[in-house]
């Protein structure tokens, strides 16, 4: 399998800390984003990202290159985050609307995002935050991390059909919520 990170992985497996630092630099954004999508808290996401890389460093000698390194790393990240989430379940913070608006502001430089109706996009992103965890995970991996259906199936250890079904159910739920919102707005007018 042609993996652009293969060289860094091989050197890291031999205990080269500089090579592993290179892997961290290239993958930390995706891992942190994934952790945030599960935990919905910046500090927890940062702590767990650190833990994920420590685990990866220890487990790397066992990585045989059967999948892409990022697929292996994301799978490790998902498992670690889900375990952490189980521990934190009672004390999770829900993203508030200010945070959603802040994220909207950061996307403003993107011309496509700017063309969208800001209010509706903010509403939809907030709706994604309210979706069940399994849907949020596939949405994050598909839309934010640009992973293929096959890669997502490998990362989450799910059949390909289930990944597609999760994505379609999430899209359908979001479209329905948008409809309800519109109807709600219409009724209130």
């Amino acid at each position, binding site marked *: 399998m042609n993996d652009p990170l293969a060289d860094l992985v091989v050197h890291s497996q031999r205990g080269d800390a500089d090579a592993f630092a290179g892997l*961290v630099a290239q993958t930390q*954004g995706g891992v942190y984003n994934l952790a945030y999508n599960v935990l919905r808290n910046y500090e927890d996401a940062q702590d767990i*990202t650190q833990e994920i890389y*420590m685990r990866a*460093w220890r487990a790397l000698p066992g990585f*045989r290159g059967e999948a892409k390194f990022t697929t292996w790393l994301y799978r490790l990240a998902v498992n670690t985050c889900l375990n952490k989430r189980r521990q934190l379940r009672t004390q999770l913070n829900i993203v508030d609307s200010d945070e959603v608006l802040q994220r909207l502001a950061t996307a403003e430089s993107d011309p496509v995002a700017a063309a969208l109706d800001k209010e509706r996009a903010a509403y939809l992103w907030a709706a994604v935050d309210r979706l069940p965890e399994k849907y949020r995970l596939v949405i994050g991996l598909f839309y934010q991390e640009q992973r293929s259906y096959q890669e997502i199936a490998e990362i989450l250890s799910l059949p390909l059909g289930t990944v597609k079904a999760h994505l*379609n159910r999430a899209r359908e739920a979001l*479209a329905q919520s948008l409809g309800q919102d519109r109807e709600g707005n219409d009724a209130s007018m």
Partner: protein
Amino acid sequence: MPLCEQIRRQLPQYVADGEPMQAAYSGLREHLRVCPTCRAFAARLRLVEGALRTYPSVSPAPEMAEKIICSFSSESQARQEEWRILPWDVWVPVLAFALAVMIALMSIPSELLSATAAPEWGTVVINWPSAIGAWLNSLRLQLGEGQFWAIWIGIFATTAGLGISLSLSNWTPKHSQSLDRLETGVTDVAARLWDHGRRAP
């Protein structure tokens, strides 16, 4: 299942795929042309798709990478230092093996050692642990040959078993790979020796 419900099940994937002009979707396209409810739902799905494609990622704090690198660097350094003082999964089996070898050597009857043509090693083995050797010999006489060896074999087997199980508890796939390579090497050597033996007159 009513037609609208069937169409609504296909719509999310159809919109996400960019509304392809494939023949498989001709029925769906025809339905959208005549059904305002499904058409409105497709329009909402397009909005959803657009919003999801611009769903922004969160970025980690700039110092996070540095923290991660510091933590695994200190761990790898600690691991190296640990190796210098020998971890338990090395020294326990080594100690068990050394103990077994010492017991075996000390248990060789002195008359047998002096009868063999190895005076230097024999002398070393007999003289160096003479006090322990004398104690072991008296113990052997008191207990009898069978009971004496049963006790020592028991001690050896327990210590070696403990050492091996402690080592295995720290077993990683890398160790399995090394073992596979060793097995392949041994098999290869054995096969060559076997061939050599068969060819020899």
